[in-house]
């Protein structure tokens, strides 16, 4: 599974994307796995209310299933316009 990070999430984790081997069922499961990895992940995912998630380039939420998903992206609330 491709996992992408944008804006300060990318900066905290220190990379824009990585391939993650996971059996996580939901986004929340994936977040828990990442948090266990290293301090920088725990820090980036410390406050989920400050984060958004997209599954295969569609906005989604942390309770969503990862079944069939190939690309997960984490980022702060968007500030376009």
């Amino acid at each position: 599974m491709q996992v992408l990070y944008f804006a300060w999430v990318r900066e905290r984790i220190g990379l824009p994307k990585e391939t993650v081997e996971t059996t996580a069922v939901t986004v929340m499961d994936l977040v828990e796995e990442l948090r266990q990895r290293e301090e920088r992940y725990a820090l980036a995912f410390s406050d989920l209310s400050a984060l958004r998630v997209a599954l295969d380039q569609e906005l989604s939420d942390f309770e969503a299933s990862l079944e069939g998903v190939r690309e997960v992206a984490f980022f702060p609330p968007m500030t376009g316009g």
Partner: protein
Amino acid sequence: MRILVQSEPFDVGAETARFGKGHQNVGALVTFTGIVRNNDAGTMTAMQIEHYPGMTEKALTAIATEAQTRWELQDVLVIHRHGDLVPGEMIMMVATAARHRKAAFEAADFLMDYLKSRAPFWKREITSEGAEWVAAKDDDEEALKRW
């Protein structure tokens, strides 16, 4: 419908002229152009705009399509830049063409609200003191409830 995501500057005059041409049954054109403003202290040297290639185009197309579903529009234009911009540069524009004024105004306002909170762009201000990500405002999320 015309959706452009690009790092290059766009020509607001040429885009407006192009958008205004050749529509049948259009009585009203509205354009909105966003310009990079300096901060209050005047210390901003650049605004960096990060985006999510692939998702950006899909999100903008979805927002423009939603506008066309809600209002009777003859055409929609959305241009959004990414990369490094300096104060005074044009960052984005939307344009709507409709038979009537109300639809054109409302749809442009709607596009802007959705663009602000639903299109994957992130702004960072570079000042003489350092770099800072622009925080989303609660207002921006609230604004979506208008529609």
